[in-house]
């Protein structure tokens, strides 16, 4: 990664490392700007927050701030892509996917264009802005569009690589990023592979399949479970679409029970996507930790994750329930 004056250093030197995935996006964009002259970037009056501003400073002729007009932004991105550009378009996840769903479907996915929607401030960890800004349905509405490829990086290391990969993967890509500084789970030698789930820890009692900020919580939960004599496999499902159903099938066969964890609605989200793969391959008992059909609310990100049972303690409790079902 390269250090830039426009972006705060990704890691502040404090251990254990924490960083926001949106910062890694800003850095990756700068690298792409230098290496690929076809890369253009669009934003909708949030360039300081989404971290596209540094690209805009470095390449003003390839940066378009469209103002508070997300549907128009996606349409313009599609037009640029139709002329051979690789168009990165950013806003908060709520508005990038919510305001522009129809444009994403009709103008980006139907014509199979190189539009890379990198949306920040996804999920509960937006915090105090509350339910109008806490996008908890974006993975659902993106993964159901034919041809849309969906990536939810677990940390800043993975986010950086996922953004670089998105530029190379043909066609539409949605990358879900966070506002909050969250634990870094990967060392710098980690290699993101599009479409492949990474096994971060092995175990035979249950598998925890997680995405995004809940991957760190899953690892912490697995540590706690281990002290209780329960060994959990932890899978980082950073590519949601297309889903690595081989990894899911192996987890089902080897562990006999699967718990999913996501900062997102269970309906249509990771939980449902994994359940689909499980019932088609090797049905086993499952539990889902996610938003159970409610909106979020104001509060700090950590408070909200705990409140909705998406922290390590919440995952441990659900894992124990799941094991009872497995043994029944």
């Amino acid at each position, binding site marked *: 990664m390269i250090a830039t004056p426009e972006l705060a250093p990704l890691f502040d030197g404090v251990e254990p490392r924490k960083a926001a995935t949106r910062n890694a996006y800003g850095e990756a964009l700068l690298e792409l700007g230098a290496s690929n002259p076809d890369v253009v970037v669009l*934003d909708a*009056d*949030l*360039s*300081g*927050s989404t971290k596209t*501003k540094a690209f805009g400073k470095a390449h003003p002729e390839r940066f378009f*701030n*469209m*103002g*508070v*007009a997300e*549907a*128009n932004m996606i349409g313009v991105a599609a037009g640029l892509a139709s002329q051979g550009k690789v168009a990165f378009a950013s806003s908060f996840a*709520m*508005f990038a996917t*919510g*305001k522009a769903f129809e444009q994403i479907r009709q103008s980006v996915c139907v014509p199979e264009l190189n539009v890379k929607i990198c949306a920040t401030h996804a999920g509960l960890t937006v*915090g*105090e*802005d*509350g*339910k*109008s*800004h806490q996008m908890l349905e974006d993975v659902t509405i993106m993964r159901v569009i034919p041809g849309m490829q969906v990536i939810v990086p677990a940390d800043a290391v993975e986010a950086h690589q996922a953004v670089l990969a998105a530029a190379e993967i043909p066609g539409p890509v949605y990358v879900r990023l966070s506002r909050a500084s969250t634990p870094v789970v990967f060392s710098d030698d980690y290699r993101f592979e599009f479409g492949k789930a990474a096994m971060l820890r092995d175990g035979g009692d249950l598998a925890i399949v997680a995405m995004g900020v809940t991957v760190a919580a899953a690892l912490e939960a697995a540590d706690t479970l281990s002290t209780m004599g329960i060994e959990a496999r932890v899978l980082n499902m950073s590519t949601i679409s297309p889903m690595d159903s081989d990894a899911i099938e192996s987890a089902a066969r080897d562990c006999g029970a699967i718990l999913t964890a996501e900062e997102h609605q269970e309906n249509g989200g990771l939980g449902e996507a994994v359940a689909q793969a499980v019932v088609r391959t090797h049905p086993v008992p499952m539990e889902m930790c996610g938003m159970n059909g409610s909106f979020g*609310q*104001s*509060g*700090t990100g950590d*408070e*909200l994750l705990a*409140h909705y049972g998406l922290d390590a303690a919440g995952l441990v409790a659900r894992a124990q329930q799941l094991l009872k079902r497995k043994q029944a």
Partner: protein
Amino acid sequence: MTLSQADRAAVEAAARQIRIDTVRMVHAAACGHPGGPIGMADFMATLFLRHMNLSPETLHRPDRDRFVLGNGHTCAGYYSILSQKGLIPRDELLTFRKLGSRLQGHPHRTPDMGIDFSTGSLGNSLSVSLGMALAAKSNGWDTRVYSASSDGESQEGQIWEAATAAAHYGASNLTVLVDFNNVQIDGHMRDVMDVRDLREKYEAFGWHALDVDGHDIDAIDAALVAAREETARPSALICHTLIGKGVSFMEDQPGWHGVAPGDEDARKALAELGIEGAELEAMMA
């Protein structure tokens, strides 16, 4: 047409209280949006004190006036004026943005507090306000619907779909007050995405549209009277304001759109708003 001295003093006091409450709430929350509500204080105070018939007595009357805060991020000032009208307990204000609070980071529709609609996503508000206005008309009520919007929100295409429809249906009971402060998140609006002359635009869409000095209480009041008297077209009051008006270091500064003042800045802001001595110490404690 000017206000009596006593009436003007009451509106000025309410506007000052909006500014003070906004500083305190955003400071206490350590996040939020101070600049917008401080800049909107004069027209919000004029509207709620002199034009909207919303009070604890009318709260549950179905035909009372309605309000939609399109630029929902400016809700600290909205909560302040609702509390001044007796609809939110004063001591609840400092729960703003905290877990479990009724005072969410963006307004959530709460009939018991007189919050008529949930907002926060820019662009949706004028359509909703039009729907409320059409409902009142179809009921034969003389309800007025007031909608606050902003230069930033005017960049959303849906605003102009609503503007087209409101004129088409002659929604003369609908008034939008646009906080035109030439500021949005990424900088000055004219540099980011210039919406140009909004009075001309609304006029071209078939509205009764007026430019208003958003810090001149007499002028705001007169414009609201003119909007009330207009019987054929919806009214757009383009309120020209200064973001952060009254707190010198916030004025015209895009940086104060969405950053909370720390202790030192909060103290400076409150001092500029006329809070001093023991009162200031108590607020900062």
